[in-house]
């Protein structure tokens, strides 16, 4: 992971100009939020009970969704990176579908499968009395559906970048595929998994469309921060800005803490 030495050169204007514009485009809306934030009433607004409830629910569900994504996504990424099987390219394309699908459509699709009358949902309801829509578990499911591709893509990239000779050496020394995976592969791509998990968590934290469609909106049960922001926007723009700032602060803090590590991997 050594980098080529950088020579000091004049940065071409043709790159500097669009780069500056790009940065401005990303940063200006955030500046808008900060400028319009009701700083004087901020402490009082933060102390409102609904705010902390939504924040806690958001953090809990995003974390649970990330754990689910890691548990299922890492093996999936390994399969895509290490095992030759027919239709692998198709599977890889399918994994990225939630990336391009409008999240609201993802939510409807989840309802059609896990809903009360859904393909699996009706069976779950009849057999176990389990109903996922309008529950916190439903929020986790919706977030995981939308966020998992980020994890799979990051981990698969890390696996492809990892030197396969370590795994081959482990195999020649008699280690089975499972042992090789847990003892060699996983430690090797751990930074990649961490990076993917962070991306996945950030995406889950901001999830709106699939959540409100599949899990609905009820304070304390399924109302995450983005949903609270949207509803606050209906009546009180200032409150919406405060909620957004909280979400922004939390996510920026987390991402900044792990960003260097992530860059180091890719």
């Amino acid at each position, binding site marked *: 992971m050594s980098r080529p030495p950088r020579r000091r050169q004049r940065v071409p204007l043709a790159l500097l100009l669009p780069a500056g514009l790009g940065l401005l485009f990303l940063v200006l809306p955030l500046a808008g939020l900060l400028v319009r934030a009701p700083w004087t009433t901020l402490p009082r607004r933060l102390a409102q009970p609904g705010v902390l409830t939504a924040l806690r629910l958001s953090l809990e569900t995003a974390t649970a969704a990330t754990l689910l994504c890691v548990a299922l996504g890492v093996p999936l990424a390994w399969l895509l990176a290490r095992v030759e099987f027919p239709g692998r390219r198709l599977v890889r394309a399918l994994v990225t579908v939630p990336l391009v699908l409008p999240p609201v459509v993802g939510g409807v699709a989840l*309802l059609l499968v896990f809903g009360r009358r859904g393909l699996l949902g009706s069976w779950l309801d009849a057999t176990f009395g389990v109903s996922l829509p309008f529950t916190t578990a439903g929020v986790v499911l919706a977030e995981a559906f939308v966020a998992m591709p980020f994890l799979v893509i990051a981990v698969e990239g890390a696996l492809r970048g990892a030197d396969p000779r370590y795994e081959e050496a482990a195999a020649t020394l008699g280690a089975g595929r499972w042992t090789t995976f847990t003892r060699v592969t996983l430690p090797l791509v751990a930074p990649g998994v961490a990076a993917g998990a962070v991306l996945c968590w950030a995406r889950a934290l901001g999830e709106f469309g699939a959540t409100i469609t599949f899990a609905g*909106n009820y304070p304390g049960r399924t109302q995450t921060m983005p949903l609270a922001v949207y*509803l606050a926007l209906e009546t009180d723009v200032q409150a919406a800005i405060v909620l957004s700032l909280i979400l922004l602060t939390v996510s920026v803090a987390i991402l900044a803490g792990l960003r260097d590590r992530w860059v180091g991997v890719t």
Partner: protein
Amino acid sequence: MTAWWIRATLAGVAALSLALTGCGGADGGSSADRGGTVTVFAAASLTETFTTLGRDYEAAHPGSRVVFNFAGSSALATQITQGAPADVFAAASPATMKTVTDAGDAAGTPAVLVRNQLVIAVPRGNPDRVAGLADLVRPGAKVALCAEQVPCGAAARTALAAAGVRLTPATLEQDVKGALAKVKLGEVDAALVYRTDVRGAAADLDAVEFPESARAVNDYPIVVLKHAGNPAGARAFVDHVRSDAGLAVLTAAGFQAPPSR
């Protein structure tokens, strides 16, 4: 190399500006006509009727075009007060209209266009035999309401309070169409929505009327906006929907005519 790069950039800029002025030109040209484009922000519950009324208006005013933005009234009010380019605002409650008039964004006083009442939307055939609000709190019953921030949610709260029913809904939807969709998909057993919404989805749903809805009748105010890009077209559209022919479309969908008429 440099010359090539400059030429390419200039060509790109030229193409871009052409595309931009092309778009602007089309709009500017048509609004110079008698009709022009009328941008209407209307409550989600007006989706079907206003779409019809917009087509009628376009037919009656050749060369004109009506563009709609349908959403929860509160979201629309926020968009308007934040400077969204709208000509007409039709809200589902005086409270959401007040946001706009208080901000000084309305031209003139809003007029009450129609009134609407809540019903209980149930799957077709009413399998759970829901007869009134009290049936919605039966154990295991799942109900969708609108969030209190939007007019249908405020009306639902008033009606439930009038009936003395303490209901814990499965979900509080962002607009009336969201609540309606949850019943249509069979994810909830019932939802409190407008009579007109069920009328529009009669193939899937039945409406159960309940007496307390009379206590929570919603007036739908309509107004031309102050910063309308096409004030003449805006007034013409408002006149059109408030005409007898316009009201006929609205009442056929289940709206009630305003009391003053």
